[in-house]
């Protein structure tokens, strides 16, 4: 190795013969003096350079004209040193983590963290990019204050739901704007027949930095799209110096974290016959001679679902050109039988400096994602979970005598043989063992994001940048249903193919100008942005398919007896001007003003533009003289405050909420059109006034850092889908109006501490806590009378004075001990029972006469008897993460918590506690059977599930606390001693690390359902697939 370097040096000398040269030797270290190998040392203005040895030393010949060396290394701040006449230099690099060096990525630029007066959370993706998930959003939970991330199911391809500082719109978009390398990208759950996450096209391992902008000041530069916050993702770039090759791979296994406890075959027979007997019917359930006992969940869910991920990256560059390339393959099998995501991703980021005036670069993302899914319908007869909770446990999924080997009645009926029972399952839930294997839901997506920029630096401090990108997403989706059983039976087989094409162009032209005059620093940003998005799709589908053979991979011409087509074409555009002014006095006082003016194609021409200003101020008292006595304890303190008015984009079914239109409305095969939307010409942006007051402290020489924010988002001009009376007959029963008001108020606290910092042992703790209280403050009026609430689905109300989406329903009063009837409280407190005894009207309400079992006066439970049973969205949440290192070992673990919300356990109400000839959850064994039984589960009564459980109405019987504590992940890694490794491998292998990790290992909760995260934004848990626990093993090698 030494020889090699010597040779290189000789060669370099030869190269420099014409110029006079001298030799410089030196050492690159970190601030604590430890050597930094592989640091890049380049002479400024040339491409000449070298890298440091394993002991940090280097020797290089430089021309006499050389003045400045640029020294950089991974994870360290790049430094320039003036060599002057020195021939020996020692360079101490500081790590990027050091607070003073830290920058914050903001819209259209970066800012020094110390000067940043907005509120943003930096997420260090490197901490978790080895965790298993196809996309980064699924890993974000607990990583940042104020950011509530919910993985709503165990499906691997379903995007996470992200709320930043609460729900910031009642009926418009509630998710943040996602910006990758400065470009707002297409995001969402976009495939037409499967769950599919567009953000999955970005490899988490390629992400250098994520910045989540939360307050008005930070987001105002994104104007009308900022109400729900902004997530800025920056991908990795190359470093000057030698090429580093890195391989990172892991394999793992996923299992369901928690399943439901269902009745066994024997228990089912008892319960089913008891349901029937109580309704005066003869028994129908019997055990067969084989004692068949099927756990249908085992047919829907698989164990040890295999996961693998491999990323190979190349990173390097010289003084002029840097690059980052990566290749990735991921295959994640879900725990639901047919759920899978397979991804292939390529990234090529290239930056080149032509000269000191012109710089250009290009970031290219290429991805292919394949998603596999199944019928996940909460009410579907073939819903993977919905059906497996109800299918009869004393019936086998298989039957050898049937041609398919499955227990199905093809061709006579679309049902299963009932085994020893005298009837089949009620409502004809399908044999999902068959349908999961024979029906297909598949999406194949290609993504290309090309992002080219050119940057000019005409004068000192000024940078002018023009950046253009094309984002293309093509989705080929397939759905096919086998004609022999299930959803496809009545159609004679069904196939659907669609092609969706999204295309977005973004063109930004902006400048950044820095000016420093004495103690005054000015930073100016301004520019213009255009965005145009086109969405096209068409589909071909058919029923009565010639043969099973033609249902395999796609629609085949002339195979469907009844074909049909579909399609759409929509286009939307944005045009924006934006500007930002920062003033910094002596690093002590800060002021920022931002303005954005946005035009939106979906608004009427006269109302198209909106302006969104933002302001913030900051003060670092720790820079003041009076702080000196405090400085040993609190070495850094900053106070900041901000205010901004930002907006929220309008979406609507037809993309033009201001227009009254007629859409296609065929009457059979006769074409027709009919009014399909009533527009509001005057529609304008939703506005969100964001207030924030924050504090940042660093204590004990940065050993402890604390940030705290108080915030208030006051939402105004909310674009409500103002409900119209059904009897008005307005399409969609609503008219958009800028009318509602709402607010989110809360605090966020985050504390980071280096608890132990010894040479061989460190322990770092980060904890965060967020509390978000939302309140609807105003809706619309009917005839001058303010309306108090809007119904939002069956279980939720959006009610003035309450949190968004309260769960609204009956108060359950338990079971009447004397007769087993369920009891409720009316709004006025009257105790009533619902009768399920013969002799009086079944399902009717009567008052309770003490507890003697008799029926009192006939009464009714009406809409007015429903009360607020709690809010559906968590109020407080956060995480505590720990990193412990001992020599080469690192142990990371994170606990995450959330709560303050209630969950409407629909799964229990409709599925587990049904009163049909269907299986139940074990809890039904607690049913009332005789006078004196004290239980919460009423007497059984066949066919009365809708009544007994009050299906489609929330009742406190099924509304449970959503609080939980989750062991989110534990990772143990071992880094092989780098010097030893290099010695061993002749320097080819620079570093190696092995790790084992567990994700989502345990949840502590009183919630009785599968998982307290399995909730809609209304807090309803609807037969969602259980969350998964994954154990994986990985290897990281750097060359």
């Amino acid at each position, binding site marked *: 190795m030494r020889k090699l370097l010597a040779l290189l040096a000789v060669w370099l000398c030869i190269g420099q013969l014409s110029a006079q040269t001298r030799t410089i030797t030196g050492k690159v270290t970190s601030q604590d003096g430890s050597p930094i190998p592989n640091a890049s040392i380049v002479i400024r203005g040339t491409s000449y350079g070298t890298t440091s040895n394993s002991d940090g030393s280097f020797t290089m010949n430089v021309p006499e004209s050389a003045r400045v060396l640029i020294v950089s290394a991974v994870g360290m701040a790049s430094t320039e040193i003036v060599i002057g006449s020195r021939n020996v230099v020692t360079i101490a690099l500081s790590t990027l983590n050091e607070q003073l060096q830290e920058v914050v990525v903001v819209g259209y630029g970066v800012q020094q963290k110390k000067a940043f007066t907005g509120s943003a959370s930096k997420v260090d993706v490197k901490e978790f990019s080895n965790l298993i998930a196809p996309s980064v959003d699924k890993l974000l939970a607990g990583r940042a204050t104020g950011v509530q991330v919910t993985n709503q199911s165990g499906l691997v391809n379903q995007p996470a739901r992200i709320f930043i500082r609460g729900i910031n719109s009642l009926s418009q978009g509630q998710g943040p704007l996602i910006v990758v390398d400065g470009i707002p990208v297409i995001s969402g759950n976009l495939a037409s027949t499967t769950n599919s996450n567009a953000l999955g096209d970005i490899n988490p391992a390629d992400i250098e930095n994520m910045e989540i902008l939360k307050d008005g000041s930070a987001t105002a530069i994104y104007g009308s799209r900022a109400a729900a916050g902004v997530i800025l993702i920056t991908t990795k770039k190359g470093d000057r110096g030698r090429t580093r090759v890195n391989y990172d791979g892991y394999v793992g296994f996923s299992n369901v974290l928690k399943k439901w406890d269902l009745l066994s075959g024997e228990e089912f027979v008892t319960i089913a016959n008891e349901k029937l007997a109580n309704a005066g019917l003869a028994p129908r359930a019997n055990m067969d001679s084989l004692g068949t006992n099927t756990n249908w969940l085992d047919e829907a869910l698989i164990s040890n679902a295999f996961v693998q991920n491999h990323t190979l990256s190349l990173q390097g560059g010289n003084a002029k050109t840097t690059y980052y390339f990566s290749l990735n393959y991921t295959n994640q099998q879900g725990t639901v039988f047919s759920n899978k995501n397979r991804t292939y991703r390529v990234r090529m980021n290239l930056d080149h400096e032509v000269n000191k005036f012109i710089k250009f670069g290009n970031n290219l993302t290429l991805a292919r994602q394949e998603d596999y899914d199944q019928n996940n319908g909460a009410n579907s007869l073939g819903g993977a979970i919905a059906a497996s909770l109800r299918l009869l446990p004393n019936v086998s999924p298989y039957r050898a005598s049937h041609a398919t080997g499955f227990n199905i009645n093809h061709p006579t009926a679309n049902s299963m043989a009932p085994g020893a029972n005298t009837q089949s399952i009620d409502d004809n839930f399908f044999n999902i063992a068959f349908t999961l294997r024979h029906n297909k839901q598949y999406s194949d997506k290609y993504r290309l994001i090309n992002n080219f920029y050119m940057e000019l630096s005409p004068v000192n401090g000024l940078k002018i940048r023009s950046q253009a990108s094309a984002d293309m997403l093509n989705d080929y989706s397939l759905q096919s249903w086998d004609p022999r059983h299930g959803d496809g039976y009545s159609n004679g087989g069904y196939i659907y193919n669609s092609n969706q094409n999204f295309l977005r162009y973004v063109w930004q032209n902006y400048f950044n100008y820095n000016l420093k005059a004495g103690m005054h620093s000015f930073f100016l940003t301004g520019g213009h942005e255009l965005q145009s998005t086109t969405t096209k799709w068409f589909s071909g589908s058919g029923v009565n398919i010639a043969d099973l053979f033609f249902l395999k991979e796609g629609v085949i011409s002339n195979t469907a007896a009844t074909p049909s087509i579909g399609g759409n074409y929509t286009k939307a555009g944005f045009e924006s001007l934006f500007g930002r002014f920062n003033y910094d006095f002596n690093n002590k006082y800060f002021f920022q003003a931002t303005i954005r003016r946005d035009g939106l*194609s979906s608004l009427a021409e006269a109302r198209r533009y909106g302006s969104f200003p933002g302001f913030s101020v900051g003060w670092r008292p720790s820079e003041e003289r009076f702080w000196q006595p405090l400085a040993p304890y609190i070495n850094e303190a900053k106070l900041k405050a901000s205010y901004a008015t930002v907006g929220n984009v309008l979406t609507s079914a037809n993309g033009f909420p201001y227009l009254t239109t007629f859409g296609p409305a065929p009457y059979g095969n006769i074409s027709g059109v009919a009014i399909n939307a009533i527009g509001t010409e005057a529609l304008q942006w939703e506005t969100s006034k964001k207030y924030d007051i924050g504090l940042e402290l660093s204590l004990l020489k940065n050993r402890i850092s604390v940030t705290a924010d108080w915030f208030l988002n006051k939402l105004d001009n909310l674009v409500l889908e103002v409900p119209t009376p059904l*009897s008005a007959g307005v399409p969609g029963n609503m008219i958009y109006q800028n009318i509602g008001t709402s607010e989110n108020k809360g605090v966020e606290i985050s504390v980071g501490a280096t608890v132990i910092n010894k040479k061989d042992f460190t322990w770092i703790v980060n904890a965060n806590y967020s509390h978000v209280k939302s309140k609807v403050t105003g809706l619309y009026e009917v005839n001058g009378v303010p309306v108090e609430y809007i119904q939002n689905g069956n279980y939720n109300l959006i009610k003035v004075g309450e949190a968004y989406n309260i769960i609204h329903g009956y108060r359950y009063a338990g079971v009447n001990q004397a007769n087993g009837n369920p009891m409720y409280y009316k709004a006025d407190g009257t105790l009533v029972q619902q009768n399920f005894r013969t002799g009086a009207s079944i399902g009717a309400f009567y008052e309770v006469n003490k507890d003697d079992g008799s029926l009192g006066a006939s009464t009714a439970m009406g809409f007015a008897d429903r009360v607020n049973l709690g809010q559906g969205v968590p109020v407080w949440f956060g995480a505590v993460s720990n990193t412990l290192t001992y020599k080469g070992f690192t142990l990371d673990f994170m606990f995450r918590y959330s709560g303050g919300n209630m969950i409407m356990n629909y799964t229990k109400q409709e599925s587990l506690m049904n009163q049909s000839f269907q299986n139940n959850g074990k809890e039904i064994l607690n049913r009332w059977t005789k006078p004196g039984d004290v239980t919460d589960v009423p007497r059984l009564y066949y066919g009365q599930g809708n009544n007994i459980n009050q299906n489609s109405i929330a009742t406190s019987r099924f509304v449970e606390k959503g609080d939980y504590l989750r062991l989110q992940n534990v990772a143990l890694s071992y880094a092989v001693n780098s010097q030893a490794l290099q010695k061993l491998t002749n320097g080819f292998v620079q570093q190696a690390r092995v790790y084992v990790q567990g994700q989502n290992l345990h949840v502590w909760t009183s919630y009785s359902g599968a998982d307290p995260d399995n909730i809609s934004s209304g807090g309803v848990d609807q037969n969602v697939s259980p969350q998964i626990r994954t154990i994986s093993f990985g290897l990281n090698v750097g060359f």
Partner: protein
Amino acid sequence: MKKIFCIAIAALLLGITGCKKVLDVAPNNAIPFDMAFSTADYCLLSLNGVYDAAQSGPYTGGTERRGYPFGAANIEQGDARGEDVINLAAFFQITYQASYNATTANNVALWDNLYGMINKANVCIEGFKAAADKGIISAAVGSEYEAECRFLRALGHHEAVIHYARPYLDGNGNKDGIPYRDFAIVSPDAIARIQSTGRPPVSEVYEKILADLDFAETNLPATRSTAVLKTTRATKAAAIALKMRVKLHMGDWPGVIAEGNKLVPATVDPVNWTSVVSPIGNWALTNAVDGPFTSNSSTESIFSIKNDAQDAPSTNGGLAAMFGSASLGGRGLVAISPIIWNNTGWKCDDKRRSTLYVTGASNISTTNLSYFTNKYRDYTTRGDYAPQIRYAEVLLTLAEAEARQEGGVSARAVALLNTVRNRALQTPASEQYTVGDFASKVALVKAILLERRIEFLAEGKRWGDIHRTVLEPDYTTGGIPAKAVNGANGLSIYECGTAYTPGQAAIPYSDYKFIWPIPASEIINNPIIKQNPTY
């Protein structure tokens, strides 16, 4: 340097001038309001759109087409509210067991889709008038299109008034009716206008229905160019026949007779049922009992809502899917009840039993068989038309009015009853009713009412008859009648002529559940509309 600046500024300017194109976009999937009535062709497309609204609307808030207001969801509920079918699955269980509340999907969706259709009709009525004023369409075409819209508007309001309000005979129409919408609602101002009008009395609803139908009768053509159009778009006979139905609900026997005489010859030959031909539109019974079902646009199908393979409700809203036996490709969710099947008034060798009903499995049970109708036969593409008015209804409605009008036993009523019934008899000449078969007028009316239950079984007509007769001591069911228990019970319960004891208790007329609740969202957003008591 200067060059670079120039380029940068040029780029910025270019960007700014390029913006117009980015923002100036218009929908490609919907036409602006004004265009909808801008040409004669667009007027016709808009008219078709009103029929579409009658065909297959979704559950509220969803997109799956379930067959509201005049498709399967409506027909099945019309039957499931009565006693002549058994609900086997959960699908219409709430309707069947009368456990609905103000947010129950099925009754909310019916209300929602009825008024959705009515507003589309009103939007078009105003559009056609404006188009006629501008000479885009002739005044005659304008009136004809308006007549079609008013026919549908009347049909819609009548459907609403029988589900959500007490019958006309209760206080001679003085109970709370349902809102009658007769102007286009396309703006918040129009909504404010309806928010100041409460529920009119039932009688006012009937008056407005009749006014619409009078206009429709005057302006609709007697016939159309093809059999399909004649059945699937309103004609003069459809307006008259609907008026007969409406007047029957009002107990206006002379009114029914006056209308009926427009569609039925003065003398009929009951043994020769196809010889009874309507002077308007040439409507006549088909020869065979299954004639109206083997052909969607038979000579008897005065008005049906069109469905076909290209445009049909989903499997959850198809007539054949829901009513049809699983053995034939349906789902078998609604079976025939032994209450009607075993009724002694229905002859055991009646041709309808063997031609229009089959035993079969349901999806629920392959072992517990039931009787299912096979009136609807398109199991895979669900293209059965949803029958609304058949000539058989005209004949039986007129028969009932004649029978009730007459002091004794009306010979004409007997002849009309026979005309329909004879088609189903093995030997009509000898088996048909004679005047002497009826001890009284009441017995005759009862026979006609029973004949309606048999003839229109599985066509959604049962609730209308229960609703309108519930206050007549001679004919009342007392309320929502007792029914068989929800679910399949096997073929043993079916036995012609053997009395069957239903297991689900009746609900008396006085009970609040006799009529449906007004949807909660109506009450919230339009508080002037008062909820039906107790809901």
